[in-house]
């Protein structure tokens, strides 16, 4: 009997044997790392500085664009705009325009607006009872509503113009827009394996930040126009910086979702 010893790859293709071997041992998640290099940090700093500088340099144009978007949205939402007033956002900077819409004082708001506050408190109460995890957030929102109701009741003629609101809004948002590139670079660019994609995320967050700000400002002005100052602290808290944080978190979670799958393969944690 002749035993033939077969050498080399048993497969028809010469190199297919190599394909069965892994290029590298798949790293266990406990020892994984990503290259956070000095170069990457420098790129992140440069992108942040350029974007921040761009935002500062074109601040007026940016606020003007913000205003135009807000104007269109207000027209679309049927919020009457009496006109636009130039407001000073920061000393040394040319004034930006803020929309003029009527915000009634507490003494002039309709009964249904007052009922709406009570309804909002009841809804928040129900939500907090149903979903225990939301209790503190709902409690804080109720606290804001009650504070506002008390302040408005004590001083029913308290007025707050939409121009002042627009001015404060733009001040806050401008600070956010200036800060956003730095935060976004740290979150999206430094850990992202693909530099171009990281820069894309940073730019997208910045653009979205401006668009989303206009949308939120219009929503707030709409609420103020119909209900007076009763909801002012609530919407300021909910639609202001909290929304900025939430949209950033949303983008970040999607970014990590995509990166994580691409870097380590689409597999479950327990498989690695």
């Amino acid at each position: 009997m002749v035993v033939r010893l077969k050498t080399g790859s048993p497969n028809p293709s010469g190199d297919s044997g190599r394909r069965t071997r892994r290029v590298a041992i798949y790293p266990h998640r406990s020892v994984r790392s990503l290259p956070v290099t000095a170069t990457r940090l420098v790129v992140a700093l440069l992108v942040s500085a350029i974007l921040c500088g761009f935002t500062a340099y074109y601040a007026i144009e940016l606020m003007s664009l913000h205003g135009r978007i807000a104007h269109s949205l207000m027209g679309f939402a049927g919020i009457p705009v009496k006109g636009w007033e130039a407001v000073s956002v920061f000393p040394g900077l040319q004034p930006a325009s803020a929309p003029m819409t009527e915000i009634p004082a507490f003494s002039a708001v309709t009964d249904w607006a007052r009922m709406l506050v009570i309804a909002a408190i009841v809804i928040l109460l129900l939500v907090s009872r149903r979903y225990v995890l939301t209790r503190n957030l709902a409690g804080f929102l109720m606290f804001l509503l009650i504070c506002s109701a008390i302040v408005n009741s004590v001083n029913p003629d308290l007025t707050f113009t939409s121009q002042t609101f627009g001015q404060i809004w733009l001040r806050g948002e401008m600070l956010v827009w200036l800060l956003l590139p730095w935060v976004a670079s740290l979150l999206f660019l430094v850990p992202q394996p693909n530099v171009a994609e990281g820069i894309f995320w940073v730019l997208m967050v910045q653009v979205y930040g401006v668009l989303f700000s206009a949308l939120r400002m219009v929503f707030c002005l709409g609420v103020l126009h119909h209900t007076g100052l009763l909801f002012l602290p609530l919407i300021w808290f909910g639609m202001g910086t909290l929304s900025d944080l939430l949209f950033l978190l949303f983008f970040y979670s999607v970014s990590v979702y995509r990166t994580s799958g691409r870097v380590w393969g689409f597999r479950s944690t327990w498989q690695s």
Partner: protein
Amino acid sequence: MGIQINMAILVLIARCCVLFTVLVLTIYAIRHYWMGFSRLKLRNPKDMNELVGFMMPRITVMVPMHNEEKVAADVLQALVDCDYDWSRLQIIAINDRSTDGTRAIVDRYAEKYPIIQPLHRDSGQGGKPAALIDATQMATGEIILLFDADYIPGRAMLKMLAAPFADIEVGAVMGRVVPHNVGGSLLAGLLSLERAAGYQSAQQSRFNNGFTAQFGGTVGGVRMSALRAIGGWDASSLTEDTDLTFRLLLNGWRVAYVNRAECYEEVPISWLVRRRQLVRWVTGHTECLHKYWPRILAANFLSRMEKIDALLLLAMYLTAPVMVLGWLASLVLFFVESAHEVPILAIAMGFVGYQLFANQATFMEIGVACMLDGSRERMLLMPLNILNFFASTGAICNALMRFYWRKLWGNDGPGWDKTKRTREPGAGGPENGNGLRIVGRTSNGLYFSQKAGEE
């Protein structure tokens, strides 16, 4: 005139509060960003992984149990299934005044496996530290390893936790805790993100950079000689693990972190259970802060960075009231009309935004951990973590208020409170959300899952 002066003082105080808040949160933001990036880089992990299996000292495994009939059998079975040399292994199953079927389960296992020694505590001080004091008197190992009853250690777990003790400077070791009931509720999913950030990112980063890792009181161990040298367990402490970490640190020992030693645990699925857990942690942590901060500052052998890190770790729960203070101060600035005229309001509002961005740093750690873990779907839950954030902030503030109230008036603190289990006996774990439950182990020690209802 008088009202105007009072308003001016109020505005001044509010501005100071906002600035203080921003300062504190900026320090923590820098710390979190640094830890996240440092972990991504994974510089020089010193987990002695190569020694796993070669370094097998005599060990004593302790499992404190109080009314744990739902989970007791799983943990004891998992421990006897570990591939550690039985001649060097002692398991002490502590039945701490249980009123359910825990005693019977412990006795049954002790009868079946000679390496298991039962310790029935029917009287005396309650709580885990008191139980550990009694169990330590029975221990014969050079190393004591601890597991809570709801944990399911893998086959190589004991070897992995024993290996770092090859380093004579290591006084304690800590493994990684991984929740297995992620699909149990939204809260469980959010807590799994928090755990991932805490272990995969923060613990590993601190260990890599030469800072002491935090001993968590479970999935970890302590060197018997080190424990004796620092005076044993502190029965009065609510968080005996944090207390032990800092006593070891102040006596020159290090706490090693083994990221690969992953052990499954059950996280709370309801907020009420979680809140009780949080209250205990906050109280214990803050107690340790008050107890050890002068000694940390005075310790000559600790570097400046080690001191800063230790103090920031102990003071981390104080950031919650500081943040609330900042919010309230911003609210005051918002309502006080005079502040509208000056840019300070805008700056205050910007700072409030910055506080939120500062918190982004902790979310960044979650992202880093998920990226390294390869977790994808659960990462999409992250925006909802804001609910957990608000809920925790309130619970922490409440716990701190009670803590300082008691400190002021000298009342007794909260008792040791056991976390409620939800797992059914013998189920090996609740369904993980995909209709799967952990039902057994493969030959290499990995647990495998099965569709609910399948045989």
